[in-house]
């Protein structure tokens, strides 16, 4: 056979496989997740249901013979492409046309009376049919030359776009729509405007002597203050580490990792234990100054303290990168020309730092807006957007429309900040490129500035150590809240008790359920996140296709959406058919995968930038397909990025709370949601114990993954020397 014939027969086999999958989906597999009310078909498939009078399923069933016919005629033709897409469209349309309680579109109800009893959400059949339609679309696109005819790359693009549409854009759209739904269920502009301009959102009373400001103003004030303080601290820390002969640099770096693996709430609890009205510090201060101890920490002050503790490490890392990237020759030149250290710092160093400062500031601002754990523990009466959204969905004041409106405001604020940050980051690269030679010594800090930096950093480090000491101690004493420091394992027993019962090991501890779910969900989500992230990075950096920029933007967007907004949008979108998955473990996994995927993608993009394309081209010249090249050449080379993505997505899945809190159920509870419940009920010791256990589990898992990274890295280096060096 000639290569052309070989390719044609391979394509024909692939088309056959997709069509067989479609046949399986519409003829055999159960179409819905459970049979709709009153349906007793011979087969629970689309065909069976359609024969029984649910006629709105006929178009999907009939798409099968039509596609077989079109495929035989010309599989690369426009007709086939259109039909495959139409099949997918019909599938989606029938899902939305008939809801759980009856038809959403009037004429379907008149045409098919069976629609009156409604239909349940998509089941195996419907999902498989969707996959088959998309597969056929990708197949045809590849034949028509999409992605230079690479079927694997083309297919990946189609499926990733479909997944992003379903799990990122559809929920946001649904949420935006929910903001317009009035109490009577009608969609109108009036309710949205009422909610948008409600006085408790925008009120400015606190500046003019009133009691409280609107919730947006609260969020903004908090975000700006937190970002300012975090950036200043991050800069001071970075200057000390990079520009002084400070001895404990490694300790400082290690300390900056701690907040990343700290479960939410626990820092807030530790702050209450230290600074609450009966807290150690407050009591001490009250005695020294002979005043009555107050609840000063609740509200803006407390949230700010917790956020500074949590986000300073992030700004520190950003600032450290900026400081280290400054070419010392510039400063040296300035001093050679006669400028003193102070003048050099303000005329040379400072302007070069500015873009980094802006980036760190905006990052901390975004984190502060999205933060949920600290405001809910320490907020007192100080409400911010994320907590208000939470109570509008989960609380007794259930009002999805209001939650949706607030979520859209939060999303807008975050996106604006993100946009600004991207602009600044674009300019930041200018700084790193300036130097032709890195020779020369970085100037040390001017003496006065050094003093300022130390004065800022020492309290911060003491504060961090104090908080983590409480966390370490709190789980294993009687009651840290009342300073009853009798050692005990009672809390550990409450959470993680087990017995040998008749049927084997029985877990009675109250935390087992959520612990198992958390580990399982994180363990499933992490590799999936990495897989999709790296695959997307490969598509963006190595493939050429129409709409690539839009594709890249879309994938990054899911990272910019605050967790609370993701959570609410998932509730709005996936609570009802056709995609009815709330209350399952799948929705938790999906949520993590699409929230963290951009991080895997960024790690992948960075790794791909370092690898020369020529190796992949060589592989393809020698006849390997896109998939083989990816598996045999690319993946082994980007393994470190793979493992970085694994660690990040695993840890985030273990500690995330803002999105998860909306998605947990009695069956699938997550550790963070459980901890939040304990904090709310005032069971601080139990919350701290659980957090400590979680942190230990995470450290063990990270070490495990790091061990694997180390091993692979060695292998990579050997490969690298053997293959790449001769090529240069």
């Amino acid at each position: 056979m000639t290569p052309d014939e070989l390719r044609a027969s391979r394509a024909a086999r692939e088309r056959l496989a997709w069509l067989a999958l479609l046949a399986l989906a519409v003829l055999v597999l159960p179409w819905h997740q459970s049979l709709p009310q009153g349906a007793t078909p011979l087969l629970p498939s689309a065909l069976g249901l359609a024969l029984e009078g649910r006629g709105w399923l006929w178009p999907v069933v009939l798409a099968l013979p039509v596609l077989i016919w079109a495929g035989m005629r010309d599989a690369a033709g426009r007709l086939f492409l259109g039909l495959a897409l139409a099949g997918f469209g019909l599938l989606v349309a029938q899902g939305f046309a008939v809801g759980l309680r009856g038809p959403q579109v009037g004429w379907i109800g008149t045409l098919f009376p069976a629609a009156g009893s409604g239909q349940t959400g998509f089941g195996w059949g419907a999902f498989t049919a969707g996959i088959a339609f998309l597969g056929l679309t990708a197949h045809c696109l590849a034949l028509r030359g999409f992605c230079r005819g690479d079927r694997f790359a083309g297919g990946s693009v189609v499926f990733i776009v479909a997944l992003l549409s379903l799990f990122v854009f559809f929920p946001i759209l649904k949420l935006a729509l929910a903001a317009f739904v009035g109490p009577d269920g009608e969609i109108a502009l009036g309710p949205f405007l009422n909610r948008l301009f409600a006085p408790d959102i925008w009120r400015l009373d606190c500046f003019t002597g009133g009691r409280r400001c609107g919730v947006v103003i609260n969020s903004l004030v908090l975000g700006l203050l937190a970002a300012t303080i975090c950036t200043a601290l991050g800069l001071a820390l970075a200057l000390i580490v990079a520009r002084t002969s400070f001895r404990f640099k490694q300790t400082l770096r290690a300390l900056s990792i701690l907040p990343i693996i700290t479960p939410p709430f626990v820092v807030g609890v530790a702050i209450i234990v230290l600074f609450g009205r009966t807290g150690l510090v407050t009591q001490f201060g009250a005695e020294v100054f002979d005043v009555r101890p107050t609840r000063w920490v609740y509200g803006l002050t407390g949230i700010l303290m917790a956020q500074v503790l949590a986000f300073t490490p992030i700004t520190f890392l950003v600032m450290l990168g900026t400081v280290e990237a400054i070419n010392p020759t510039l400063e040296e030149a300035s001093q050679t020309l006669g400028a003193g250290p102070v003048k050099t710092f303000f005329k040379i160093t400072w302007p070069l730092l500015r873009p980094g400062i802006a980036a760190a500031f905006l990052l901390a601002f975004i984190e502060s807006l999205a933060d949920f754990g600290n405001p809910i523990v320490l907020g007192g009466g100080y409400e911010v957007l994320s907590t208000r959204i939470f109570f509008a969905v989960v609380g007794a004041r259930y009002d999805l429309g209001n939650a949706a409106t607030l979520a859209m405001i939060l999303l807008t604020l975050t996106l604006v900040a993100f946009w600004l940050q991207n602009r600044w980051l674009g300019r930041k690269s200018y700084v790193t490129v300036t130097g032709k030679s890195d020779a020369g010594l970085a100037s040390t800090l001017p003496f006065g500035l050094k003093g300022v930096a130390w004065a800022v950093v020492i309290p911060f480090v003491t504060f961090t150590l104090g908080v983590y000491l409480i966390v370490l101690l709190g789980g294993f004493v009687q009651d840290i809240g009342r300073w009853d420091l009798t050692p005990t394992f009672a809390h550990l027993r409450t959470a993680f008790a087990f017995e040998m019962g008749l049927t084997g090991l029985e877990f009675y501890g109250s935390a087992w359920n959520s612990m198992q779910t958390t580990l399982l969900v994180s363990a499933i989500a992490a590799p999936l996140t990495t897989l999709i992230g790296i695959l997307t990075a490969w598509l963006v950096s190595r493939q050429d296709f129409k709409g690539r920029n839009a594709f890249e933007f879309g994938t990054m967007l899911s990272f910019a959406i605050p967790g609370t907004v993701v959570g609410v949008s998932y509730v709005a979108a996936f609570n009802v058919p056709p995609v009815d998955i709330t209350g399952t473990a799948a929705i938790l996994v999906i949520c993590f995968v699409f929230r963290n995927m951009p991080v895997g993608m960024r790690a992948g993009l960075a790794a791909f930038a370092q690898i020369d394309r020529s190796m992949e081209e060589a592989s393809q010249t020698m006849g390997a397909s896109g998939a083989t090249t990816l598996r045999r050449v690319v993946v082994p080379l980007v393994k470190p990025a793979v493992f970085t993505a694994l660690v990040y997505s695993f840890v985030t899945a273990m500690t995330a709370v803002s999105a998860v809190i909306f998605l947990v159920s009695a069956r699938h509870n997550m550790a963070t949601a459980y901890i939040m419940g304990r904090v709310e009920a005032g069971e601080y010791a139990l919350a701290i114990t659980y957090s400590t256990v979680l942190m230990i589990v995470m450290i063990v898992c990270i070490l495990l993954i790091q061990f694997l990274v180390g091993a692979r890295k060695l292998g990579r280096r050997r490969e690298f020397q053997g293959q790449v060096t001769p090529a240069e």
Partner: protein
Amino acid sequence: MRKSTIISATIAGFISVPAVASADELVLYCSVQEEWCRLMGESFQRETGINVLMTRRSSGETFAQLMAERDQPRGDVWWGGTGDPHLQAAEEGLTAAYESPMMSELQDWALSQAEASGNRTIGIYAGALGYGYNRDLVDDPAPACWADLLEERFADDVQVANPNSSGTAYTLLATLVQIMGEDEAFEFLGQLDQNISQYTQSGAAPIRNAATGETAIGIVFLHDAVAQAVQGAPIGSVAPCEGTGYEIGSMSLVEGGPNPDNARLFYDWALSPEAQALGAEANSFQVPSNVNAPVPPESPSLDEITLIDYDFAPYGSSEVRQHLLARWDAEIGSQR
């Protein structure tokens, strides 16, 4: 086909088998304090082998959850929490009617819940409203009446839950309205608001905060205050001199829940003297509704407290409840 196998495996991984409950499970929505909820779940699990999936939420939140899930109920039994939201759920048709064989063993006040709701809910315990104060923070004379809470020395030092989320706080609202009349009650609450540092989400949180000294006074059910004192906190409890209301903690079966048989099994078990004796073990000192269940010696005796004639039927109805909550939101909640 390799590409498709990877991708379809990925997608298949996302779409788990829909949540259809298996035969040996029970989804329990619990609205008392966590410790008691856990003990109930564990004990039932030990006794029957039925796996209990328990969620602890305040009664207001549970009611909101039942409303949100009404098209596809995911819970089986709602156990505990003040009676008003249970009555409201019955009125909304969220809960199912059931006549337990245990009903003959119950106190009259427990059966009154069933009568008011057409057997859709039943009383499981009772407890009087009051407040607890931290003895280290409150100087003599100790407060003894509702009116004492308005004193200036308690500025920013009183906590109570938000009546929207907590049945405890709604009971306070309804009690004051019944003692003083509606307008006077809201005037009182408006003045009290000056002394309130925070409206918590959970009804028992104020007393926990009083126990650790984060606030001086927490308005709660007296058994919650006693529980803190029993655990060693410097808490004194006050049954206000003007008289006070009480709750009938209730239980309801969720209409259309996934495991109706197990739900009825739990319902009958929860009304038995043995199950009701568990409360004291979990530091919960409510008065049990089964006449044969032992009353914990620590329980605040209902006979020694000036109880008002709390009118459960109107104050548990949606209409009155929504009216009072809307007024609270307008005059107090939204002013903060």
